[in-house]
């Protein structure tokens, strides 16, 4: 089947990517994964989030999107508490994360049945393009399509708690709209959505269609081009370095001597 072929292709791509990653992962960041947290539960209070028992985020309110935390790859216990409390977490879940990858962990649903949705974010951008996906985190909204104004859906029939694949668009500014799946009426117009070249985004549909906080769509940037810290010092203002420079000079002088000797020898041989 078509799907099988695609899968194979994908697998070989993944293998290649892994092999590639083995050789070019930045020093220092090689063992880390990047994780951010999104508060998308419309009726939940502000929350504190602990990772492995240590507070990592405090006072995140509905609609909050944290920066990416840097965590070692592997398993981590993520606990969500009502802000200011440290007992009886609202949510507790083990997260398994891989080195070099980006994740968004969203608390979704109404408080009564709150849960975590874990998404892997696409880190890498492509010049001139922008990759976009849609996450449906509005608990009382029907399945939706997202389309350019009046056009065919780019993302279709997305239900609550589901996240679409990324689609690639040319960088630029778009007028989009959210519609009930298969219908033409507009739930939410998204005018002037700006997609920057080389950046990836998630459009988060959150809030409530009926009641407060009202249904809204947040466009958040994803991933990033990771690097290790730059090497921004050559030691010229330290004690050790003047010593080192001296030794380097001695070594150079030594090398010069050897070089000269070699040339002299060759001349003699000739």
């Amino acid at each position, binding site marked *: 089947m078509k799907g099988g072929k695609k899968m194979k292709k994908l697998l070989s791509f993944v293998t290649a990517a892994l092999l590639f990653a083995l050789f070019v*992962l*930045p*020093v*220092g*960041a090689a063992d*880390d994964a*990047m*994780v*951010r947290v999104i508060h998308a539960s419309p009726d939940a209070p502000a929350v504190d989030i602990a990772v492995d028992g240590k507070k990592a985020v405090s006072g995140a309110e509905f609609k909050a*999107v944290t*920066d*990416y*935390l*840097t*965590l070692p790859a592997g398993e981590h216990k993520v606990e969500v508490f009502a802000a200011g409390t440290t007992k009886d977490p609202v949510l507790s879940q083990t997260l398994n994360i891989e080195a070099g990858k*980006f994740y968004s962990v969203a608390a979704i649903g109404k408080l009564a049945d709150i849960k975590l949705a874990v998404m892997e974010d696409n880190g890498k951008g492509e010049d001139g393009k922008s990759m976009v996906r849609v996450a449906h985190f509005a608990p009382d909204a029907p399945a939706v399509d997202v389309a*350019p*104004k*009046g*056009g*065919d*859906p*780019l993302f279709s029939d997305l239900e609550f708690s589901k996240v679409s694949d990324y689609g690639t*668009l*040319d*960088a*630029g*500014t*778009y007028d*989009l709209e959210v519609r009930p799946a*298969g*219908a*033409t*009426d507009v739930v939410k117009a998204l*005018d*002037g959505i*700006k997609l*920057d070249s080389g*950046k990836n985004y998630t459009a988060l549909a959150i809030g409530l269609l009926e009641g407060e906080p009202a249904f809204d769509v947040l466009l*958040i*940037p*994803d991933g*990033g*081009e*990771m*690097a*290790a*810290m*730059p*090497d*921004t*010092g*050559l*030691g*010229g*203002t*330290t004690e*050790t*370095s003047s010593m080192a*420079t001296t030794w380097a000079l001695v070594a150079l002088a030594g090398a010069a001597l050897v070089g000269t000797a070699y040339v002299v020898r060759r001349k003699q041989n000739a």
Partner: protein
Amino acid sequence: MSSVVNKTRNLLLLLTVLLAGCGGAEETSPPRSVEPATPVVDSPAPKSDAKTEAVETFIPNRLKIPAIDVNAKIEVVGKDAKGRMDVPKQTDQVGWYRYGAKANQTGNVILAGHLDDTNGPAVFYDLAKVKRGQRIEVSAKTGEQVSYVVTNVMSYPVDQAPVGSIFGATLAQRLTLITCVGTFTQSKGYDQRLVVTAEQEQ
């Protein structure tokens, strides 16, 4: 009158064709609403009239930190062979990470500068003296300028810097300045990094 009818019929026809074209998009609705007056776009093209953008984003060209008398040219840098953010070629200049944000854009504008070169102090020698609340200015070749206010000054062991929040996407409009601090060894260079964080003034 008849032309209106014709128009409507044509639109309906068009709609039917388009619906059929998008591969089984439910034959549920014979004309749900009979006034889809907007022309149907088959593939979205970016709008040329970017009406929402009043202020342009720009590639930073000059950095000023009045509090420590820094007025430096900015060059564009990427990553080095070891996967580190690259450094400016001139030690009296500052490097702007081309994969991060531009100035005036949502995201993190990342600048790195040397603490010292092999002979003595370089552009960011005094960066550790910067304090919260002080202003930093970034300008374009063409003169646009944005200001940032320092919110945090921290140093980290080189392998424990918060690279996720530095290089990863953020909803903030932030400027991050990086230089070396700590102990220098010939084999490993400095063992810490100083990270100055500033938020854009609105």
